[in-house]
């Protein structure tokens, strides 16, 4: 389907529309005739005798000033007449005669139906609309060549015009742009000139072509669906989340207060009412205890202290319990960390929690410090512990570890870790170098992630103990009271509070999402 047709649309009009158009044209002519003060444009059906008196007076004066020979249409300048219908005539402006020396005279023929109609904006707009809707229709007034009195140019301007003395201008562009050559005015004969002014000042709406498509119902449905999709795409999505800022802050405060109270209350009351976990449920924690318990006195134990300050609070009870056990077995502890904060935290833990143990009190342990370089450095250390750390202060530390040349020479390797990734790195990188595997003491979050290594073949992880639960369990196995036991009740109450808050928060969210918004039907709510 094309919007354009080579056929004259006027010809294809039905009879009833042709009749209607004829009647309309006639009415337009009458309307122009009846408009006071307007210039009557010449028509093919009318003679120039109907000119008003004032126009005849102007014409007489004009002829008188220029002489009869100049007042006649100039045959050698037919193009000049073509410019006339395009002469600007602003709305409501009555054309006035101009001196012939300055400008081309405004002959009565200069006024077309548009000009005349322009005296009344509404009627002019209607006329233009009519023309636009039927691009090929015949104008109501047709100007015959005989009736037009072309304007005249001053001699100096005529001399400048590219007439016959000039070569034909730019025939190529004329071919390329048929009809683009200026046909009238001082630039007649030139092509590719800017459009004449009347085109720019044309009164009325821009052309509107009919966009009604001949489509099937199915096509219409598809178009509607596409439009809906595009509309949805252009809708901003962030509004809903931005709305939720206020309630989020309140909920944060409420949840924070509830959690704080549930944890602080048992700590303040020093409650010990909650039953500590049973070792039978955690065989991997039992493995840690068993392996440390059979360690020979004086055995060197490598402690990879991969702890972040953020989880130091959680790790402290568990690490204290395990290190206490190791120090009881008179193990020679060697600390190292691939975390910048690890060595400092290890020192703090030893001094704060185990300062009374003889080895710690006398400083009979080695802190190799921070091993920079991440995984690459770790691999390097596992391959050659002495070579990787034999520099600066670490060199002095190694003087007490003469028996250690490779990582397998340690009696045990224990990874104390905040997260699963650091522990995983140690487990994977040491898999070949430690045939018996290593032990992991971790934050609760790392426990499920490291379980896979407990079942690996060959064995890479021999024992695992995690979190406050692990601390309470380990203390129970050792029949001692420590931080694990002190925190166990608070842990239980905090856990209960979290479960309750999630449950209540979920229900609250469900209720909120089911409540219809203002001005919106319930059905339009997003399911939640």
């Amino acid at each position, binding site marked *: 389907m094309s919007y354009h047709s080579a056929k004259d649309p006027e010809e294809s009009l039905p009879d009833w529309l042709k009749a209607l158009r004829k009647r309309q044209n006639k009415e337009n002519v009458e309307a122009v005739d009846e408009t006071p003060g307007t210039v009557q444009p010449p028509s093919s059906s009318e003679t120039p005798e109907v000119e008003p008196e004032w126009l005849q007076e102007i014409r007489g004066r004009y002829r008188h000033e220029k002489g009869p020979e100049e007042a006649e249409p100039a045959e050698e300048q037919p193009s000049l007449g073509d410019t006339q219908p395009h002469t600007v005539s602003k709305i409501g402006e009555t054309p006035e005669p101009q001196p012939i020396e300055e400008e081309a005279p405004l002959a009565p023929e200069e006024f077309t139906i548009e000009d005349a109609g322009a005296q009344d904006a509404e009627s002019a707009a209607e006329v233009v609309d009519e023309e636009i809707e039927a691009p090929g229709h015949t104008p109501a007034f047709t100007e015959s060549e005989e009736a037009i009195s072309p304007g005249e140019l001053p001699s100096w301007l005529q001399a400048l015009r590219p007439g016959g003395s000039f070569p034909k201008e730019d025939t190529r562009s004329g071919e390329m742009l048929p009809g683009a050559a200026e046909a009238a005015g001082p630039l007649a004969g030139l092509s590719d000139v800017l459009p004449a002014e009347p085109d720019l000042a044309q009164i009325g709406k821009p052309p509107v072509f009919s966009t009604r498509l001949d489509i099937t119902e199915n096509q219409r449905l598809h178009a509607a669906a596409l439009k809906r999709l595009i509309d949805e795409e252009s809708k901003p*999505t*962030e509004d809903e989340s931005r709305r939720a800022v206020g309630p989020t802050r309140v909920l944060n405060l409420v949840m924070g207060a509830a959690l704080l109270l549930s944890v602080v209350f048992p700590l303040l009351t020093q409650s010990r009412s909650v039953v500590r976990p049973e070792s039978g449920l955690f065989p991997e924690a039992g493995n840690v205890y068993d392996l440390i318990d059979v360690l020979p006195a004086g055995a060197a134990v490598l402690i990879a202290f991969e702890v972040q300050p*953020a989880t130091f609070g959680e790790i402290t009870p568990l690490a204290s319990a395990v290190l206490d056990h190791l120090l009881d077995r008179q193990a020679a502890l060697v600390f190292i960390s691939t975390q910048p904060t690890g060595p400092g935290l290890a020192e703090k833990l030893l001094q704060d929690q185990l300062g009374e143990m003889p080895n710690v009190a006398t400083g009979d342990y080695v802190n190799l410090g921070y091993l920079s370089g991440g995984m690459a450095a770790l691999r390097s250390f596992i391959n050659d512990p002495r070579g990787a750390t034999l520099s600066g202060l670490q060199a002095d530390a190694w003087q007490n570890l003469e028996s250690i040349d490779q990582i397998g020479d340690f009696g045990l390797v224990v990874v104390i870790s905040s997260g699963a990734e650091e522990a995983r790195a140690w487990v994977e990188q040491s898999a070949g170098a430690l045939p018996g595997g290593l032990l992991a003491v971790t934050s609760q979050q790392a426990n499920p992630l490291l379980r896979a290594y407990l079942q690996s073949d060959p064995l890479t992880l021999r024992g695992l103990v995690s979190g406050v639960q692990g601390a309470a369990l380990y203390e129970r196995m050792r029949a001692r009271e420590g931080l694990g036991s002190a925190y166990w009740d608070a842990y239980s109450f905090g856990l209960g509070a979290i479960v309750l808050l999630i449950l209540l928060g979920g229900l609250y969210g469900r209720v909120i999402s089911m409540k219809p918004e203002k001005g919106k039907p319930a059905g339009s709510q997003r399911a939640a």
Partner: protein
Amino acid sequence: MNLTPEILIGLALALLLIFSVFGRNNPRRALRTVRSFRELRRTIELSVEDGSRLQVSLGRGGLLGPESAAAFAGLTLLRQVTEIAADSDQPPIATTGDGTLMLLAQDTLRHSYRRLNMSDQYYLRLGRVTGLTPFSYAAGTMPLILDRSVLASALVGSFGEEAGLITAASQESGAFSLGGSHTLSGQAVLFGSAQAPLIGEELYATGAYMNAGATHQASLRAQDVLRWLIILLLIITAVLPLFGGAQ
């Protein structure tokens, strides 16, 4: 069949090269829809339209471990986001928790601006370190998001549980949050807190989904083939002893 590391690496390389050469212009090889990437693309377009900022968090992973691959995925995203939104009123900003990654982020941004002939609009602070421990990194990133000019925050890199703080900041400021990490704890946190989480290997498909080039698509296809191969091997390994026992 014993799938040794050498065989796996060789196979992966062969598949990558094959798909790079032969699968380049195959229109049938359409990617399945991943909601997170669709949402991200839409948000990038929105941010360009309304002149708001996009913030790409590259995490705290360095280049000396497996976390570097996640960081590279984040850098690819940064490059694509920059090339779309560099001429926005507020250009994209990248935050890292590691020095080496900061250098790479600045390099990526600089080259993207140069490719767009906008070198004069690039400045060094667009790629910045906000903290060198996980939580200090999160704490340093949060104010950038809480500044209401950020429309979307993409966390693609190495994150642990601290990612929860960054996504919470996004939620509070009403910004869209996409999150993917190579760590399992990071993935768990992001699944619960980010609007558009990336799970498992989806993180490494970032380049393919953000139209970073044919090699990224080839890489994704090779990854798919290898995954199916491993699944097949696992099933065979599990089933074979059953038949062996029956005989």
